[in-house]
Structures are given as structure tokens and as C-alpha cells.
């Protein structure tokens, strides 16, 4: 979310699920919304079917939303910036810029206009393998709409150019003023129930809760006082990211890792590398509800509570803070994670005394301006609240940036097209893209334990275009070996025109055919997100069954 933080000052969905049907145009890109965010996609369908909104889909795959789209640009994976820059070019060329908005609320327009001057639709069309006329039409639809909203997910961010992709989308909203009203905005859809919250809480190497930088002396003084901890203990140096932590374990710089509620052995790119790192690190502790692939490698495993056995809050993709409540007793001796962390901190010399998660929330809210007006008691009374919610009588904020941007003026950021790190060649002629399906979720730890969901989607599949399958001698349902420069897996062929020619698709839900054995460790230089959406692979039909 580093892209949005730069351009508008806040890396979160600007608008709300409830106002989606107020959009006249929806631009959805890099989000298979009906499978990854099914209930939110209902509002998109409603906007199209009941309110006549036009849906522009920019996605290589013919996903279900294509059935609702007025226009579908099936661009080559990794060429997003070229398409968005060309849309900006058209908007400027055809006089569709919202001049009063650009003058009053943005900066950097001149440099941006100069940068996209070369990005003719024809040039982008040649790179992205779409028609120039479709780029022109997409630009006109978006710019001329009364209210147009942009939605994206990991299809935009999981690239080495992920931050650039987000900036390129943000430029479109700034150019047209499609932000700050119902049915508009820049809306990244967060994939996990509490990604937004984990970021908000400072689960990032460079910020305290509320995105207060660790490099700020003022922030360190505030947290040292709030936590009653010596100021000199709070380091001003940003820490390492997940990918850097794994590299650090291999190089010997990192000697101990504590992992809570994550399975990097399935979710990280280039799994062989992760396994080596976690095997090598001298000490590994894991807090989880299952003994997963990561826990198997640990020295100590601590049994935690599931969402149904503890109290607390999650913050959803639309910045909405909502309660979870304990419905069941804990299994065996398992403990809620907050109790485990408290016991551990106190053994390391801290004096934490939390009776319940409501007290932890209150401490956090006292140090985090955007959460200051929220408490468990208020959530109990009123239901979910959207941050920023600075005071106890504040109703929460459904739409960000209505009067001004979090950073003051919206910043145009010229970005150039950079091809994916790994391009196809004679040895590895197909692009592999990864993602989710409706019936499973992430590493499958939760969904694959449901017999019903397993019955519908029991095995890993690889989606292959019919022309590619014919050329490779692969039949529907046949076992196929998918190999990259990093590893290989076997999955069942699913021959379908959902995948464009030259691109295959796999999920990362299945440990027995983990797509991340294939993916590349290359990351976006700023956000450090790995390039899950593009790597080069080869397909070999197998004789044995899957």
C-alpha cells in the first residue's frame, strides 16, 4: 500500500462497500472479486444490473466479472502501467481532465502530463497486446462518468512494479477527480480478514500503530511514555521485511524468529528458499492453531485460539473495526494469542497486566489517533466503526479525502513501464499467474478442513488455454508437470479459455502442489511485495495420475 500512501497520504480503501452501487462506472483490475471477495462483488453486480453502471474489467483472465463487463481488456500480465498510462494520455489528449480539481487539489500535474505524452494508446496496445480502441474507450468511460470507482487487489500489487501500478491508478483518479464522493475512489481490496488491522497496528517494520514512523523522535517519545519502556530501547531504524528476514536467516544475521498465525512455508515465494531459511535459523518459535508446514520446523510450538474462541477486533478492507466474540471453549490447553504474548513479554521483563482484549484495545486507541474514538464498549453498542474515528462522539469515516487528501494535495507520480523480472523464453514459454478460487482460502489451513469445500475443490488444478493445451498435447484432467527455474509441481490440467493463450493459472491453496515452489522471489523495490503474478514456466504432460 506504499503507492497510495505516497499519492494521497493513506494506504487504505478510500470508499465503502455500501456506496459501490452509486458508481456509474466501475474499473476493476487485478481483482477476481467474485471468488476472492464474493460478498463485496454482489454490490458490483448490483451496480451493473440494477443501476446500469458500466464495468470496465482490465484483467488477463476471463473471470466471472467479464460476464458483467461493458469492456474487457485482457492485457498481457505485468503490462498494467502501460495500459493505465495510455488511459491518462487519452484523458489529457481529449480534454477530459477535471481541471478545477487538478488545480485545487493536486500537485505535479505538469511533470505527469509530460511523462504520459509519449504513452499513446497504440504504443501501450503493442506492449499489452490489447486493442488501442479499447484503451481509448476505457479512458473515456472512466473520465466521463459522473462517479467512477477503481477497485484492485493482488493482481495489481503482486508485481515487482506493484507500487508503480498503484501510482498509475491513483494518477487516473487525480486527473479526473473521481475521488472523495460516494461511488468513486481508489479501493484496494484486502485479501485477509485483518490485513488492514495488522498494518494499522504497526505490524510493519517501519511504523508504530497508526503509521507513526519509528524514525520520528516524537513518535518514539510518545510510545516510550505510553508503554513505560526506556526511550533508548525503541530503535529509530526500520526493521526487516518478511522477505529480508528469510534472507537474514540464511545469511546468519537473524538468529531467532517468532511466527504467530502465519505459514510462510506455503504463502511465501520460492519455498525452497524459505525452507532453507527456517531450517537454518538457530531458534524458531511458532504460535498457531495447527501444526502446519512452518510449525514442523520449529523448536517450540504454542497452541493458540481460533477466532471462535477469543475476543477482539478485526479491521476490514473498508477500514471498519468490528468485534469477534468467544463462542466456544478453548481446545485442550490452548490459550488466546494475547495471553500467550503477555506471558512471554512478562518473562522477558515486562509488566503487562491485561485482563481482557478490551483493555489492550483501549491502550492502543490512546496512542493511535485514527482509532482514538473507538472502544469495545462502543462497538458492542453501535456495531462496526470506520476509521478515522478520532473522538468518542465521531460517527466514523465512510469516505476518505472528501475535502482534502491525508497528505494535503494529491500527488501525481509519473511512472514508467518496466517489464516483469522473468520473461518467457524457449525453455520456459508460459507465464504462470497465481491466485485464489472461491472454495478455498489462502494456504488452505482453514478451508481444506471442511469436507464440503474439499468435495467441491479437492485438488490443485492448472488452467490452460485450449490452444496451448492442444499444442502441448495435454488433455483435460490429465496430470501436468509445471516447472520453473526454482521448482516443479504436478497438477491436473483444466482446459479453459478463462486463461489467455500463453498464460497459465494456479492457486496457492494446495500444499501438495504448492504454486509457490515455482514463483520468483523478486520483490517490488518499495513495498517488497513478491512478483506472484508473473513467472516463466514450462508444461509437460505426465503419464501418471495426479
Amino acid at each position, binding site marked *: 500500500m506504499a503507492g497510495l500512501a505516497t499519492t494521497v497520504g493513506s494506504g487504505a480503501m478510500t470508499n465503502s*462497500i455500501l456506496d459501490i452501487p452509486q458508481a456509474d462506472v466501475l474499473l476493476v483490475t487485478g481483482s477476481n472479486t467474485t471468488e476472492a471477495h464474493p460478498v463485496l462483488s454482489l454490490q458490483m453486480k448490483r451496480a451493473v444490473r440494477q443501476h446500469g453502471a458500466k464495468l470496465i474489467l482490465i484483467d488477463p483472465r476471463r473471470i466471472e466479472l467479464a460476464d458483467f463487463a461493458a469492456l474487457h481488456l485482457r492485457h498481457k500480465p505485468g503490462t498494467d502501467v502501460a495500459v493505465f498510462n495510455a488511459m491518462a494520455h487519452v484523458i489529457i489528449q481529449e480534454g477530459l481532465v477535471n481541471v478545477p480539481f487538478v488545480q485545487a487539489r493536486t500537485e505535479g500535474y505538469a511533470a505527469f502530463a509530460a511523462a504520459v505524452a509519449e504513452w499513446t494508446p497504440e504504443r501501450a496496445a503493442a506492449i499489452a497486446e490489447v486493442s488501442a480502441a479499447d484503451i481509448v474507450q476505457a479512458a473515456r468511460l472512466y473520465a466521463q462518468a459522473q462517479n467512477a470507482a477503481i477497485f484492485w487487489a493482488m493482481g495489481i500489487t503482486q508485481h515487482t512494479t506493484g507500487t508503480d501500478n498503484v501510482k498509475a491508478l491513483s494518477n487516473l483518479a487525480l486527473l479526473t477527480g473521481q475521488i472523495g464522493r460516494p461511488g468513486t475512489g481508489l479501493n484496494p481490496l484486502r485479501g485477509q480478514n485483518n490485513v488492514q488491522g495488522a498494518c494499522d497496528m504497526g505490524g510493519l*517494520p517501519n511504523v508504530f500503530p497508526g503509521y507513526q514512523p519509528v524514525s520520528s523522535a516524537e513518535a518514539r517519545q510518545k510510545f516510550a511514555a505510553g508503554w513505560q519502556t526506556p526511550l533508548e530501547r525503541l530503535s529509530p531504524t526500520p526493521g526487516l521485511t518478511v522477505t529480508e528476514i528469510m534472507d537474514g536467516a540464511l545469511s546468519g544475521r537473524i538468529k531467532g524468529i517468532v511466527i504467530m498465525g502465519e505459514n510462510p512455508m506455503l504463502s511465501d515465494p520460492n519455498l525452497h528458499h524459505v525452507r532453507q531459511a527456517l531450517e537454518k535459523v538457530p531458534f524458531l518459535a511458532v504460535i498457531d492453531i495447527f501444526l502446519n508446514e512452518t510449525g514442523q520446523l520449529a523448536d517450540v510450538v504454542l497452541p493458540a485460539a481460533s477466532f471462535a474462541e477469543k475476543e477482539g477486533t478485526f479491521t476490514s478492507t*473498508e477500514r471498519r473495526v468490528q468485534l469477534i466474540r468467544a463462542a466456544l471453549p478453548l481446545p485442550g490447553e490452548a490459550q488466546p494469542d494475547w495471553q500467550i504474548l503477555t506471558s512471554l513479554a512478562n518473562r522477558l521483563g515486562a509488566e503487562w497486566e491485561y485482563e481482557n482484549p478490551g483493555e489492550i484495545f483501549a491502550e492502543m486507541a490512546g496512542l493511535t489517533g485514527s482509532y482514538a474514538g473507538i472502544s469495545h464498549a462502543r462497538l458492542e453498542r453501535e456495531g462496526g466503526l470506520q476509521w478515522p474515528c478520532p473522538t468518542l462522539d465521531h460517527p466514523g469515516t465512510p469516505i476518505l479525502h472528501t475535502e482534502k487528501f491525508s497528505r494535503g494535495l494529491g500527488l501525481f507520480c509519473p511512472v514508467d513501464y518496466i517489464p516483469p523480472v522473468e520473461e518467457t523464453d524457449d525453455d520456459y514459454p508460459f507465464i504462470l499467474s497465481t491466485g485464489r478460487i472461491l472454495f478455498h482460502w489462502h494456504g488452505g489451513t482453514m478451508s481444506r478442513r471442511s469436507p464440503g469445500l474439499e468435495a467441491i475443490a479437492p485438488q490443485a488444478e492448472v488452467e490452460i488455454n485450449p490452444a496451448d493445451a492442444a499444442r502441448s498435447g495435454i488433455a483435460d484432467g490429465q496430470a501436468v508437470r509445471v516447472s520453473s527455474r526454482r521448482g516443479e509441481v504436478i497438477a491436473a490440467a483444466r482446459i479453459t479459455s478463462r486463461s489467455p493463450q500463453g498464460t497459465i493459472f494456479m492457486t496457492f491453496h494446495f500444499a501438495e502442489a504448492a504454486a509457490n515452489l515455482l514463483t520468483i522471489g523478486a520483490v517490488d523495490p518499495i513495498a517488497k511485495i513478491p512478483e506472484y503474478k508473473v513467472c516463466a514456466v514450462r508444461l509437460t504432460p505426465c503419464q501418471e495420475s495426479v
Partner: protein
Amino acid sequence: MTTSLLRQSERIVHTTCPYCGVGCQIDLHIANGIIYRVDGRFDNDVNHGNLCVKGRFGYDFVHAPDRLRTPLLKEKGDGARAERAFQPASWDEALNSVADQLRHLRDHYGPDSIAFLTSAKCTNEENYLMQKLARGVVGTNNVDHCARL
């Protein structure tokens, strides 16, 4: 049929779906110690009663027989850690073992020799405590989670 099932529920607990980031509001129907039915709630601006297939039917994991029930410690030995077996341990043994190791690493190699991976699946309160532990107790900013992944 529906009403007779509803009558059996001992408790209905209003909570938030644990799958994707949409934040659907759900009712867990509890009977005989299990979640036997899940409904979408209507009294909110998020899901209006709707749920997806995972949000409605994907809760068997809570009751899975392989849920962890006790702390586990790797047996001592010379072989690779990944190959050695786990033994059940008491909370005191397990927590002391983690604390001793972290204290040792911090004292010998400095706080930045330790890293913490917090979780987009855990609550705000737990994420807050994890980074407070890393920053305020151990003294490192090596704390991250898989939002970027």
C-alpha cells in the same frame, strides 16, 4: 426443519467472518459444543445477510481433530531440527524455553538478531501486542506480516 434446528441451538453468537477482508457479520449457532449452523446477519452495512460458500460452510477447522491442544517442544538431539520429534510440554516449560532463547540471543547478538512475524489472521489486539513485544520489550523493529504477500 429450519425452525426445529434453530430451537436446538443453545447459543447464537454474533461475530465477524474470519476469511477474506470484507468483514461479513455472522451468527454462529452453537449446540453440543460445536458450530452447527452459520447465518449472515442483516443488521449491518457490509453483507446484508449474504455470505459466500466459505463464510457459510467453512468452519470445520475450528473442530478439527488435529487442532493443537498442548505446547510442543522439539526433542533434544544431534539431528536436523526438522527431523526431530515433538514432545508435549507444560506452558511453563514452553514459555520459559522461548523466553530463555530470546533473552540469550538479545544479550549475545543484539535485539536485531530476532524477528517477529505477526498475522493478518489475528486480532488487532494481538497484532498490537506482537509489535509492542518486538519494539518495546525486545527492542527491534524486525516485525512484519504477510500483507505484502
